[in-house]
């Protein structure tokens, strides 16, 4: 029963959500809207579940004194602080919650992401090599697209000379052409492949062949 009931619910919900797309009648649309409301409520609970799981993971790290457990203390402490300040005094503009968000979380988050620029530059210098014809084509395309994004860099290199001006005006168009044709052609092929894979996976889940979403480590039930 523990297996069959979820499989039946999955089958009925999957078939219903596919069918409702083609039937605009109230008989179908009313339960569809109700299902959407349930979905939003489930999503809210999933958020709570996620928080609980995160806290449990960090708590276990502290309890077992795992490597870098002190960071887990910071994570739990920060969570408790934001909850107390947010629930106690609200989260509107000018509140303590807002101050912490704007003056601590925003700069920290931005700093973490900014570090990427340094590592990308270092990685480009050390690994982006014209080792083969394909890698050379990729390298040339990458340089053109980058220059197309910042054509004024060409003015820095060549000055406002004839060549500098010509490259400055032409590079964005060449970059746009690369983005619009070779890139889109390749990307569209990938999208087709991924979409067909997603449809196949959805069908396998609906008819109960794919069962990994039910947990327990089991994968496909059959061919």
């Amino acid at each position: 029963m523990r297996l069959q009931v979820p499989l039946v619910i999955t089958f009925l919900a999957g078939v219903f959500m596919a069918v409702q797309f083609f039937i605009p009648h109230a008989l179908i649309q009313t339960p569809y809207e109700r299902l959407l409301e349930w979905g939003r409520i489930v999503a809210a609970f999933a958020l709570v579940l996620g928080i609980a799981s995160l806290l449990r993971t960090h708590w276990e790290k502290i309890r077992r004194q795992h490597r870098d457990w002190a960071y887990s203390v910071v994570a739990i402490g920060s969570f408790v602080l934001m909850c107390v300040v947010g629930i106690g005094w609200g989260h509107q503009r000018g509140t303590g919650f807002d101050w912490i968000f704007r003056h601590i979380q925003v700069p920290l988050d931005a700093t973490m992401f900014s570090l990427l620029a340094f590592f990308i530059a270092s990685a480009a210098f050390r690994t982006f090599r014209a080792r083969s014809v394909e890698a050379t084509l990729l390298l040339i395309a990458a340089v053109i697209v980058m220059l197309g994004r910042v054509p004024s860099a060409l003015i820095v290199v060549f000055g406002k000379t004839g060549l500098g001006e010509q490259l400055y005006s032409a590079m964005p168009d060449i970059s746009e052409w690369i983005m619009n044709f070779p890139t889109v052609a390749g990307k569209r092929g990938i999208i087709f492949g991924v979409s067909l894979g997603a449809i196949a996976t959805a069908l396998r889940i609906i008819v109960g062949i794919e069962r990994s979403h039910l947990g327990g480590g089991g994968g496909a039930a059959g061919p």
Partner: protein
Amino acid sequence: MNVWERMLELDRRWVFVGIALAVIIPIVTAYALPLGKPAPPTVAVYDYVEEMEAGEVVLISIDYSPSSMPELHPQAGAVIRHCLQRDLRVITISLNPQGTALARDLLATVAADVGAEDGVDCVNLGFKPGVSQVILGLGESIPTVYPTTADGRPIDEVPVMEGVETYDDVALLIDFAAGNLPFSWIAMAGERFNQDLALGITAVMATDLYPYLQSHQLVGLINGLKGAAEYELLLGLEGEDAPGMLGMSAQSIAHLLIIVLVIVGNIAYFASGRHRRR
């Protein structure tokens, strides 16, 4: 070890120093470089907003966190400014929990600049969990998904929301996002409800989304910091009102440095003979 091999063994901290200087010096000295002509996808968004009639509704989803602010905040700021200047009704929502505070601050700042009134010309409805359920739900009933604004006012008491029931009442939907959410907006709001949709995205996402632009599933696309600067240029903004343009010089020099590093790295790779050892 010859000079080329020494170059290949360059301590990466020198690269870090170079990037730091390439970013800091243009910002500190306010070094200005020309921007170039705006890209057609950016112009398409601008033209669409220009052609809308006063009072029409623009629904803007702020789906990014502070990590993507340098690229997306200037985009969203310029578009919101444009919409409010054109007397369009601006409604912001967020499917990212951190986005709701960013939307609130941005809307308040821009509204104060252009003299727009909260609740009358614009409103922030805030965050709701459940991406696909929210996007599909907005197509059935916006007041059901958002019975109150982000600061708790009942939605039927907010003048800007008058007559806004479903996507049918929204002239343009714009998603500013760093991640996978644009695909959900395209598939669910765009395809299912025929909602006109534009995007503001980080530059790394552009290759993933150009196919949808070409198939006219998007009315336009604002791409990265350059897209923000282009939109500001189209609006005629400058100085502190144009944070995208302020950041472009630093981005240009940093890109140039990376290109130089790639070229020098390749010259050193071949000149040192390492390619023969593979």
